[in-house]
Each structure stands twice: as C-alpha cells, then as structure tokens.
C-alpha cells in the first residue's frame, strides 16, 4: 500500500473525521462540551480494554517473545531525552527546566495515539502483535525520570536533586492512574487468557472502534482549545513538534525490526516513539519540575504532535515500515 493510499484511508476513517469535527467545534467556539466524567470514563474504558487485550496476547505468545522488543522500547524511551534536551536547550534557546520538561514529554508516549494506530492497522488489514500494548506500558515512565533528572541537574534555581523528589517522581511515574490501569489490565488479561477474553469480548473488543471514534471527537475539542497557544510557542517548537516525531518514528520502526517484530509491531513501536505524552508526563513534571512552563510542553505535545500523528503521522510510520520490510 503506498503512502497516498495509506493517508487517505486514515483521513477518511470515522475516528480521524470525528477528531477533525472536535477541532472544528473548538475553533468555531461552538458550546459543544463533553462532561468531565465522560472523558474520564472513556479513558478508563480504552485503557482497560487495550491493556486486557494486550495481556491476553502475552498469555498466548509467551513472555519469551515480548521481553526483547520491550527492552528495546524502554531503552528508546529513556534515550530520546538525551538528544532532544540539548537540541531544545541550545537550538531552541529554552531554559534547562523547559528543555528537560519537553524532552520528557517526547520520550514518553501517548496511549491514545497508540490506540488510534492499532485501529488504523486493523482498518488496513495489517496484522500486528497484540502484545505490543506491553511496549506502551513500559515506555511511559523511563523518559519522565530521565527528564526530571536532567532538569534538576541543569538548573540550580530549581532546587537540588534530592532523594525525596526522585522518590515521588518514581511513584508518580509508576503508580499514576493511567499506567496503573494499563499495567493492571495487562496483568489481568495475562492471567485470564483466552477463556477470560471470551466472556468480556463483546464489551471490551467489539464496540472498541466506535468508542475510540467518540473519544477522538472529545480529544479534538481538547486539542483544538490549545491551538490558540500555537503563536505563543515560536517557530522552533512548531517545527520540533512535527520533525521529531518523524525522526523518532523512523527510529522506532527500525529498532522494532532489529528486535524481531513483524511489520505491524514495528509500526506500533514507531508510533510510540513518535508520540508525545500529554497526561502522564504533565502530571509528573508539574510536581517535580513545577517551574517548567506548561504552555511549551502541553502545546507542543497536545496541539502539534498529537494532531499530526493522528492524522498523517500514523500512516507515514506505517509506510516507513512498509519500505523497510519490503
């Protein structure tokens, strides 16, 4: 499948069109609003569903197949801040704290982008390793820890790197609600296996794509409300938010191949690598590096990289994997 076809089949999917509808609603200042608890409920559903499915897949594939690419994912996540930080600090002239905060976001991952990518692969009939959810689970935290350490080392005003900060960052990074739900559901799925899946499939799997479409409508609203901050962040960050995902996407796909994944799984590792966190990382950064300016990291991850990945990024990483595997 060539890039154009890959793109158009993504852009005309209900999920992406509903995302665009949400963007439009935000831009036209329509009073459309999802209740706060609907957002929270859909998030719980999506994380539990994807985690459970991934766990069942691990149960079937065996941990032996999962550990190597998972290790690759962790390493990649932890390393990304090491080059994004200097780039932001010296290329983008950001302060040490802001640079490390943004770097943490880009090393970490976006679960919704990952879910949209699995959706996309399903739509184009590309099989993928369902246990890839495990990579999502392990890639959320490492970059956050690295980013916080960078931020503490790079800036004195920000207070020294003490043990208490490190401990609470680790706790936040490992026990935050999204990571807890995802890992928890993964373990439940791994324990239940196929027999458990049969019982809950019609709730956690069958309606999944439709729920995602509705959720992306809301995410369009949320991202759209941030669009007006675009002019505050400057051209460097704008370019960063588009170019880095492409580089990281290519890197992830390549590493995925090295780690022995199939085309579908390599695409997903590329997507994870290319995506930037906008829930878990902000929460941890807000607590550990409160001096970092949220306008920078939230606008970059939520208003630039997230929409980019959802619309054109995912098919591009898929095309990259296609080239690499052909």
């Amino acid at each position, binding site marked *: 499948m060539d890039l154009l076809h890959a793109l158009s089949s993504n852009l005309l999917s209900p999920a992406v069109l509903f995302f665009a509808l949400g963007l439009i609603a935000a831009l036209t200042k329509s009073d459309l609003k999802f209740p706060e608890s609907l957002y929270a409920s859909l998030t719980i559903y999506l994380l539990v569903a994807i985690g459970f499915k991934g766990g069942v897949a691990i149960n079937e594939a065996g941990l032996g197949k999962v550990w190597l690419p998972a290790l690759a994912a962790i390493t990649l996540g932890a390393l990304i801040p090491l080059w994004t930080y200097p780039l932001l600090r010296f290329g983008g002239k950001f302060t040490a704290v802001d640079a490390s905060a943004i770097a943490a976001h880009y090393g970490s991952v976006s679960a919704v982008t990952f879910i949209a990518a699995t959706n996309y692969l399903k739509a184009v009939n590309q099989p993928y390793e369902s246990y890839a959810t495990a990579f999502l689970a392990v890639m959320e935290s490492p970059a956050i820890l690295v980013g916080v350490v960078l931020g503490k080392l790079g800036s004195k005003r920000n207070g020294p790197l003490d043990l208490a900060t490190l401990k609470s960052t680790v706790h936040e990074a490992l026990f935050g609600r999204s990571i807890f739900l995802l890992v928890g559901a993964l373990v439940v799925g791994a324990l239940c296996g196929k027999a458990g899946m049969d019982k809950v499939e019609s709730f956690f799997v069958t309606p999944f794509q439709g729920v995602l479409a509705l959720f992306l409508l809301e995410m369009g609203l949320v991202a759209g409300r941030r669009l007006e901050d675009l002019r505050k962040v400057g051209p460097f960050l704008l370019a960063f938010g588009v170019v880095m995902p492409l580089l990281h996407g290519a890197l992830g796909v390549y590493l995925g191949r090295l780690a022995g994944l199939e085309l579908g799984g390599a695409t997903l590792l590329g997507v994870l690598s290319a995506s930037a966190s906008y829930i878990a990382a*902000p*929460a941890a950064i807000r607590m550990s590096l409160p001096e970092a300016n949220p306008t920078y990291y939230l606008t970059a991850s939520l208003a630039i990289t997230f929409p980019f990945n959802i619309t054109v990024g995912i098919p591009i990483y898929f095309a990259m994997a296609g080239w690499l595997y052909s």
Partner: protein
Amino acid sequence: MNHHPMKLVTIVCESHAREAVTKMLREAGAHGWTLFPVEGDGAHGRRPADIPEYTNVQVEVIVPPEVSNTLFERLGREFFPRYAMIAFESDVRVLRPGKF
C-alpha cells in the same frame, strides 16, 4: 445561639496541586477540608473542566485564626510561585469551636 468566630480559607488551584495542598492543610493544623472540581478563568487562561488532569479544584477549610496565618504563610512561600491558584480568607461563625 453561641457562635464562635473562625476563618474560612478558600483555595482554587489546578488539580495537580491537590495532594500537595491537602497534605499542607493537615500539617498546618486543619482537622478537615471540603473539596470539589471547578472550572475557571484567570491569568493562566481558561481551565474548562473537561479533563480531570487539566481542571481546577476548590478547597474550603475552616480553621482558627492562627492556623489561617500559617496556611497563608506557606501558600505564599511554597505554593503561589509554583501553581496556578488563588486563595482568600473570610470570617465565619461556628457552633462547635473545638471541632476546628
């Protein structure tokens, strides 16, 4: 009725500050607190209460005057420079002063 003067301290802050604030309240000597999610607008822009992580919470706490002073000292020193928030104090009267 036998009314006793107390201070009501109201804090509106980004929800990320929630744990830090309630922990501080206990440390400063408050015996309880009340909390709910709110939308807001201010120097840090609109906070439209559609994602729990991006919204505000309002915390209300009844305390004796000296605790209120401690609270405001810590708020001014540790919290105001870090978080999007406001705090204000007002005079209230309660029946069971020993409770607060």
